[in-house]
């Protein structure tokens, strides 16, 4: 697989790294990373290959993000500098935090937190990583729009983030060192992923 990434990546117009594993290493790369996994960008960088990489992270990635990106490249060409964020993700899909568009945001703002799974209210205390996760899940939702993680009462696991999984786990423990209610501002300072 490593050889294919190099030999095909070298001559490609662009590489679309589909899923958090391809984009950032993901779960196989989680501590202790038994197989030495890395994301595609990291592999190409280490071989001095400059082919543009578009990251479509997510565990799994939403099919709309993938098809939308490929269609966009075919119709309008490669993404321009302002189209991708610092992690190489298309802003059109990953431009806002889950927290910004979450239907439970009003509960967060009022300090109404669910104390156990199945209760109404903001899921922050139950481990929700929505405040640091860039993705359009609240509006696009999943599986033809029938539901999504927070919609089903489960905290967001941060699966589109480079921090997934080690720096967002434990999944059911809340984010620490968070200043309510200015969470967004705190996380603008990016954390280094080891």
């Amino acid at each position, binding site marked *: 697989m490593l050889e294919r990434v190099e030999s095909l990546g070298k001559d490609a117009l662009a590489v679309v790294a589909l899923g958090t594993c391809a984009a950032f290493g993901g*779960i196989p790369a989680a501590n202790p990373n038994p197989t030495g996994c890395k994301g595609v960008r990291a592999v190409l960088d280490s071989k001095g290959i400059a082919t543009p990489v578009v990251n479509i992270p997510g565990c799994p990635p939403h099919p709309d993000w993938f098809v939308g990106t490929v269609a966009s490249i075919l119709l309008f060409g490669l993404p321009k500098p302002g189209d991708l964020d610092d992690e190489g993700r298309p802003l059109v899909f990953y431009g806002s935090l889950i927290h910004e568009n979450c239907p439970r945001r009003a509960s967060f703002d009022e300090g109404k937190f669910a104390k156990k799974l199945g209760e109404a209210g903001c899921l922050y205390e139950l481990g929700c990583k929505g405040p640091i996760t860039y993705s359009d899940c609240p509006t696009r939702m999943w599986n033809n729009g029938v539901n999504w993680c927070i919609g089903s009462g489960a905290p967001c696991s941060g699966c589109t983030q480079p921090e997934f999984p080690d720096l967002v786990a434990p999944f059911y423990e809340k984010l620490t060192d968070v200043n309510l209610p200015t969470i967004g501002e705190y996380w603008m300072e990016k954390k280094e992923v080891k």
Partner: protein
Amino acid sequence: MGTITIDPITRIEGHLKIEAVVDNGVVKETKSSGMLFRGFELILKGRDPRDAQVITQRICGVCPQSHGIAAALNLDSAFGIADKIPENGRIIRNLIQGAHHIQDHILHFYHLTALDYVDVTKVADYKGGDSALNSIKRFIERGELAPFFPRYEGDYRLSAELNQQAVAHYVKALEIRRKGQEMVAMFGGKIPHSVGVVPGGVTEVPTVDKIASFLWRLNELKDFIDNVYIPDVLAVAEVYKDYFEIGAGCKNLLSYGAYELDGKEPDLTRRKRLFKQGVVSDDLRLEELDIGKITEAVKYSWYANSTMGLHPAQGETEPEDDKKDAYSWIKSPRYGGKVYEVGPLARIAVTYASGNSIVKELVDSVLKRFKASPKVLFSVLGRHAARALATKFIADSMESWLLELKIGEPIYTEYTIPEEANGMGLTEAARGALGHWIEIKDKKIANYQCVVPTTWNASPKDDEGNPGPIEQAIIGTRIKDENNPFEIVRIVRSFDPCIACAVHLIAPKCRDLCKFKVL
């Protein structure tokens, strides 16, 4: 005398290699090799136990739900709440798992298996008005034959009309599966990698509109199963009857049972379930399941021999990729030292042997149609038929479960994570018996083991030299054309292997792991 090597086997989940030594047209020896590993048990060590449900689902994107259920049951057992899950939680878990299995079985027959028997090129002669078929016709006319080609040639026996109809059903099955996944997501949040099943119960509160939304889709799925899926399986069987005599395998079947009908019994091997727990052989006499009899051999697997013969609860593995005679990353689970096959055939046979009248009627009606004895169940077509009947059995049971949900009743029970505990979760994934075991120390995962259905089925020889189920099913088969070994791939696919699941590894001492051979 020659060796046929098929590497990788396509149209299955994951990376499987089959080597068959053929002598005078008959397979004398076979090796089934699982090629890729990631090391999930190692990754799980030291983590918060509740994270097991999230991480183990990532073992596979086709059947994550089954791992989610097994992990939740495992954690329920470790946390001491196995008999305290609220009724709504029990039911919703069944609905999630049921919807997932239904679409997974349909996936297997149409999108993985069908092209072994169906000739898609016959759509080039299609003259009707079905838009899906006309779209495929244009596809073929453009010469765009991938992903249907390259393929084996020389043994497609259905009539032009049946071929066209089967392709139309292949396309329709995509829509049906989408609806099945929507049902999973309705209570599970999303799929793949759902969030709705957790230790203690589920997260999604049932409402009337969810129930209605689930039900209309269930009705469509039932209609497809009864009027399209089962008739298609039987239509293929009519024309490929020799496959009732091919791929018998080891003729021992094992089921952990699935779908809790009662939540009060903490011992999963005794709990009342829709599919029963137990083992049968070709005499179809039911024997109780004794979980203590499961061991894993590693003589022909790339792990140190010192870890041979351990029960999964004490599972320990040390990889050794240069081990002499070893040929797979898959271990060899055995029951009472003997080779056992798992899967929908096992579930159906065990439930049949337990005297379940519905399953008995379903199986007997198929046997009657083909004027055959139960021994034909142990075959390529037996597995496909059993899978279709298992799908119907689940689907027909789900409506009454759905309507038992009580709005406003609890869905989740709280717990405290113990300092130290052991747990076990047993269920049936679409592909067969799935077990998760956990050992908790200092409130963290000290050890986590998964013994997955395809580990059983695609296992290499054990230390007694007994080949695994897929290997046994291939040995002794006559191959008509060694350049187009239909027989081998049809046998392999009848097991519905999932290799991402089958291969796993733990290295408790964290030594340098070998370079893995990637295809």
